[in-house]
């Protein structure tokens, strides 16, 4: 048996999520009633959040008819993609029992650096105090302004920078044995301030149209209904297949494949479940952890591309505010455990869908925006409590079923 397969064999029993989750894992508790078994199966199911989302949507649509409006559905689906992109990376980090608080700042700095590469014009009145003025930033634009390679180069630079920031996080966490919370908080503070310093707190506009297409370009749009006038109003054309959709779904498929079909994925679950045991079992904790943080930085850069393109600006404050709460909240709602060892991209997708729908419903209720924020926090708390309950339930089922 070679080392690789040995590690896989050792790791498989540690994969709590894969072993215990799923409705088919119902224990043989003969004394329980059928309803209890059904509810229990539902609770531990991988599709629990999806069921919850469908129920929420169906019930809410009765009261708030705008929710079922095709335009609203298309809009909410489009809102999901950038959030999902960054939440995928966070899911990876949470699975190994870490946390990445720097994703917001990574988005901000990559947004700025990408814009510095490709901006077509820059106003000296705004940027003449920037440390980059006269070297990387000029009145005629960024480094590659006007070049046909400007946009591809900017995208590559953004992805590389995001991955590099992830590497810094992973390196500091593993080499210096620092708490992920502390390391990523420091990274976040540093890069958020760095982005503001580079631009002197200004947004960078003059972004090429081909980049903007990445954020809001429709590949396939649809129109529902009878065409009564020669021109169809823009608001009646619904985005269906868009660039953000393709990019994020591609990223999600790749991430799900890594998690469920590779040794690397198994090692991640192993580290998250029991770091010491995985180390003793021969799992290279250091390199896996570093790569996971690099992937998180990469995903943050992908989200940065989508968000920056959508607004057509390089924005130093991108990723600030409550976005981090949304990212972690969506992952946790999707069943990713804050204690590590449990999670899936499918779950995160459901979590993001639930989160976006929840906001949509709260808005449809005409609640005060301040109440909405409070409710959001409350829902995340309930999701975290449910996570604990579901884990206990799954463990009990496994215990009694073994």
């Amino acid at each position: 048996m070679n080392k690789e397969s040995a590690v896989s064999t050792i790791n498989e029993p540690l994969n709590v999520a894969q072993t215990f989750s799923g409705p088919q894992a119902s224990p043989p508790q003969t004394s329980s009633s059928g309803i209890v078994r059904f509810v229990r199966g539902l609770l531990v199911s991988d599709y629990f959040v999806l069921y919850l989302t469908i129920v929420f949507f169906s019930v809410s649509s009765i009261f708030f008819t705008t929710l079922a409006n095709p335009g609203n559905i298309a809009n909410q689906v489009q809102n999901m993609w950038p959030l999902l992109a960054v939440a995928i990376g966070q899911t990876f980090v949470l699975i190994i029992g870490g946390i990445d608080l720097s994703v917001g700042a990574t988005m901000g700095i990559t947004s700025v650096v990408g814009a510095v590469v490709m901006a077509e014009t820059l106003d000296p009145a705004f940027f003449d105090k920037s440390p980059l003025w006269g070297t990387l930033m000029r009145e005629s634009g960024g480094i590659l302004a006007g070049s046909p390679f400007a946009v591809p180069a900017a995208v590559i630079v953004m992805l590389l920078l995001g991955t590099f920031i992830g590497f810094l996080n992973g390196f500091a966490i593993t080499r210096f044995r620092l708490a992920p919370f502390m390391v990523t908080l420091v990274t976040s503070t540093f890069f958020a301030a760095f982005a503001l310093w580079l631009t002197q707190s200004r947004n960078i506009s003059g972004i090429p149209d081909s980049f903007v297409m990445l954020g809001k370009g429709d590949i396939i749009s649809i129109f529902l209904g009878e065409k009564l006038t020669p021109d169809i109003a823009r608001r009646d054309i619904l985005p269906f297949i868009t660039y953000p959709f393709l990019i994020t779904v591609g990223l999600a498929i790749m991430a799900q494949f890594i998690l469920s079909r590779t040794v690397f994925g198994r090692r991640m679950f192993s580290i998250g479940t029991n770091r010491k045991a995985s180390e003793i079992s021969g799992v290279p904790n250091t390199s896996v952890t570093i790569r996971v943080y690099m992937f998180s930085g990469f995903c943050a850069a992908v989200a940065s591309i989508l968000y920056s393109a959508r607004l057509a600006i390089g924005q130093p404050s991108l990723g600030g505010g409550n976005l981090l709460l949304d990212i972690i909240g969506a992952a946790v709602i999707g069943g990713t455990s804050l204690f590590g060892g449990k999670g899936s991209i499918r779950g995160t997708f459901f979590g993001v869908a639930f989160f976006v729908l929840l906001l949509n419903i709260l808005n449809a209720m005409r609640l005060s925006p301040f109440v909405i924020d409070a409710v959001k926090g409350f829902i995340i708390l309930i999701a975290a409590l449910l996570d604990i309950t579901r884990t206990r339930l799954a463990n009990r089922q496994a215990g009694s079923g073994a």
Partner: protein
Amino acid sequence: MNNLVKKSLLLIVALALGTFAFGVATAQDGQTICFAFQDLETEFWVAGHRAITDTLRGQGIEVLEYNANEDPNRQLEQVRECITQGVDGIIIIPQDGDSANTIIAEAQASDVPIAVFNRPPNDTSAGVVVVADNVSATEQAVEFIAQKALRQFEITGEAVTPLILVGALQDTNAIGRRDGFFNVITRYNERYPGLFNEPIEVATEWDAATALSNLEAAITAKPEVDFIFTSSDFLFPTIRSVLEPRGMWVPAGQPGHVLLAGLDGDATACMLIDEGYVDATGVQNLFLEAELTMDRLLQAIADGETAPNEVLLDPGFALTAGNIYFQRDEMWGCLLYDEGFLDQ
């Protein structure tokens, strides 16, 4: 039933109730306006929010409120949501001028009229843009001080030494306020030669700590300063902390009073005018701006105009020690002050 399952069911019920308990609304007939603001962290925005929502609701118009928490991407999503909900018009307070342009384009592409309240987009050619005329409001406040300085000059024959706390000059508001200040000083010096000495400029970068250190240095170097204009009222506490230890924080009518003026019209300025320490402040006429925004938007909706493009200026006014009893109800800061805003 198993305890754990019971608890889980309880949590799910709490989740559902928690969401729905805040109220179930039904679709309403009549006009609907979407009001998407970036946040309400300063006195000015709180008062603006209230002026707009109260007035619209008072007219029987349904208002959908969205708080972007200073995230322009979130604001874009919210505006898109408003569009899909079929609102008749949109009012935004954007996070910045750049994102404002994208949001305006999004609304106009969907044939929904949009108005921008108080924070202008970089390109003001699209949308209804309501902005304060910083030059005019500053001129009115400084004019009042210049009149007082002139009376003092005619009695004593001594020139007045003015000092201006300048904002961050990449901000068009700061530039307008500085221009307004110098316009009046220059005009009065031409009419009454020798009235004002060369003004002292103190940089603040809109930062209280920077303002404090620079003002201390300036007053130490030139203690004869007898007129201070701050480009924003939020710096009055900073000015006080510099003047008070030097015995220069004295109300009007007493020997040693330093003439003080500012711009914004916040609650602190109102209180200090009441107490006699501040002589005047240029007020962004928040209520007028709210009215201009709503009137133009409602007119566009009534006319079926989907992309109204117009810049509407608020000339502002000066609230002074002389008119505070007549005009305090027009100043948003005084309304907040009278409601006990500063006691919180």
